[in-house]
């Protein structure tokens, strides 16, 4: 779960990390009033949880409350990477001497958290690391030791600070780490971490990505999590389904993320356009299957539904029951291409064939059939 900027900064503030004076607003009038309370110049920043906001025109500067008003008018209602801008952060713009980067993230290869520090900030760390690898240091952290003060000092030294600045940075880095761990963050980064012309360090922007699997330890975030989802994703999450909107017309239901992705790939190979990613997960109950099928039946974008279930934990009879329940309860009929093998396979096939739904053995046969159904010309899809 990605926190937006002002949420991330609220977390940092709670850990004593300096951030610019700022006010969150959701309307043009509020924006004007906020600017009146702050010292110019101002930064007006769209609050959407995506990276590359700045490049997409989501961060603008103003020198008067009136100018803030104009900018707010422009930003509110804008879409950035498909997400509507519903709130803005109006901040005092500081005079900056230097921009740095500091972050803690999970490293898959190292199987632990790593500290990332950069002598340069303000742009994506991947970009800096590619362009000037010598400006970026990473350090593996022993998860039982955590980020010790001396690790923080190493980062500050790498950034070429000494004396009191070193000790200030040590404190800030330790606080960032502590915030990250307390919030179960997969990623917490302050970028840019700015050194102001008067020698203070301030978090100008921050990202926190909370581990979705750890949300049960953060009840306050759990609610927000649902608010952030698209209507389809929210409906799916209610039923424990993993769902992602895609832009095609062929609805896809599979069990297992890898199989779902592979199915999407094969649909593409055979000339189809998937409408979604929908993984019912392991050991899905008839209710969960029914919810999945219902979602796609009710989605007008979806012309045909391809169901590709390979039973491991999932039982085929339960899958069949779920499909039948969804068809009955919605009363909607769409062409179905079903592939169903695994535990209690025969039983599942029998239940479906009683309703005239034929079941095939192979994933590729099902995909070919489904793509043909979308095309509606009586021919199956072709491998391209």
């Amino acid at each position, binding site marked *: 779960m990605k926190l937006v900027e002002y949420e991330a900064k609220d977390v940092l503030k709670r850990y004593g990390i300096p951030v610019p004076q700022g006010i969150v607003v959701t309307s043009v009038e509020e924006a004007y009033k906020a600017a009146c309370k702050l010292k110019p110049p101002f930064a007006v920043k769209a609050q959407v949880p995506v990276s590359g906001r700045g490049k997409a025109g989501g961060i603008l500067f103003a020198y008067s409350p009136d100018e803030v008003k104009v900018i707010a008018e422009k930003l509110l209602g804008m879409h950035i990477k498909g997400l509507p801008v519903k709130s803005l952060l109006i901040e005092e713009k500081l005079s900056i001497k230097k921009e740095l980067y500091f972050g803690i993230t999970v490293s898959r290869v190292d199987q632990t958290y790593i500290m990332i520090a950069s002598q340069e900030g303000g742009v994506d760390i991947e970009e800096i690391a590619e362009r000037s690898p010598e400006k970026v240091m990473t350090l593996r952290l022993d998860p*039982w030791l955590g980020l010790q003060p001396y690790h923080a000092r190493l980062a500050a030294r790498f950034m070429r600070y000494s004396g009191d600045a070193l000790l200030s940075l040590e404190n800030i880095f330790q606080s960032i780490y502590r915030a990250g761990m307390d919030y179960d963050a997969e990623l917490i980064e302050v970028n840019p971490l700015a050194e102001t012309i008067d020698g203070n360090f301030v978090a100008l922007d921050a990202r926190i990505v909370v581990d979705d699997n750890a949300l049960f330890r953060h009840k306050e975030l759990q609610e927000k999590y649902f608010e952030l989802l698209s209507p389809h994703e929210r409906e799916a999450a209610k039923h424990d389904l993993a769902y992602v909107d895609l832009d095609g017309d062929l609805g896809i239901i*599979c069990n297992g993320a*890898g199989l779902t*992705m592979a199915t999407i790939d*094969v649909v*593409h190979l055979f000339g189809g356009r998937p409408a979604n990613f929908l993984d019912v997960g392991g050991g899905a109950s008839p209710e969960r299957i029914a919810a999945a099928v219902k979602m796609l039946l009710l989605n007008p974008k979806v012309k045909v539904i391809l169901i590709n279930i390979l039973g491991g934990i999932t039982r085929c009879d339960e899958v069949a029951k779920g499909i039948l329940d969804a068809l009955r309860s919605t009363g909607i009929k769409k062409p179905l291409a079903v592939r169903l093998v695994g535990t209690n396979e025969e039983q599942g096939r029998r239940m479906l064939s009683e309703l005239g739904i034929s079941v095939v053995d192979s*994933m590729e046969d099902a995909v070919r059939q489904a793509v043909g159904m979308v095309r509606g010309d009586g021919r199956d899809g072709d491998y391209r």
Partner: protein
Amino acid sequence: MGIIVNRDVSVIVQGITGRQGQFHTKLMLEYGTKIVAGVTPGKGGTEVHGVPVYDTVAEAIHEHKVDASIIFVPAPFAASAALEALENGVKIVVIITEHIPVKDTIKVISYAKRIGAMIIGPNTPGIITPGECKIGIMPHHIYEPGNVGMISRSGTLSYEIAASLTRSGIGQSTCIGIGGDPVVGMSFVDVLRLFREDPRTDAIVIIGEVGGNLEEVAAEYIIKENYSKPLVAFIAGRYVPPEKRMGHAGAIVMGRTGSAESKINALKKAGVEIAQKPSDIAVLLKRLIRR
């Protein structure tokens, strides 16, 4: 034979009394896996399919020789269950549980490395040496003993491919799911290393997916070590959008890293044959093994 598990491995099931634990204990027993005990706190003294249940791993270890554990414990408690197995000397721990917070997983893996134990998973279907031993949840009827090793990040996709191999007359030495989470105990490299030394494995299938760079690291390893056995790979997720999590916590393309192209290119460079779709794998393997 095969790697890691064989017919002599004694196994405990942690979380044996839950729905999944009971169901798969039955299936593993039917497959011939030597399940000697189960553990569920508060259920000690009961039995599941004839397997005695204990409250703690320590008690199970006291009564039985134990080589491996399979964990079905719910996510909030799974990491501690793994530590329990590890602290009691169990050297192979298969964590089926999904949705374990990565912070917890990281601690478990770090502890396992320190004491020289092996973690498979989390979020894995487990491991099977067909005809001998299954410590996992895979539908075992699709596997046949043979000479091809398989390493996969995803569960059902690996079943899909195993089934297609078996249908094509290609049996498997050992199939291992390393797990779909961002951080897992064994990497492709760890398993490739074991397969290299396994006399019964003649070729290896790598089933990767978008997210992370374990596949790229595997490619580097293959080049550096001049890996001697033929390899075929399939990478899922070529057509998924970036920055979206695809079910698996591990399957997400972030910025430049984690894309299917990057993985496919790296593996190609390492001489690994790339399958376009799952059914191609058997075709490619036949060609390679015949050579």
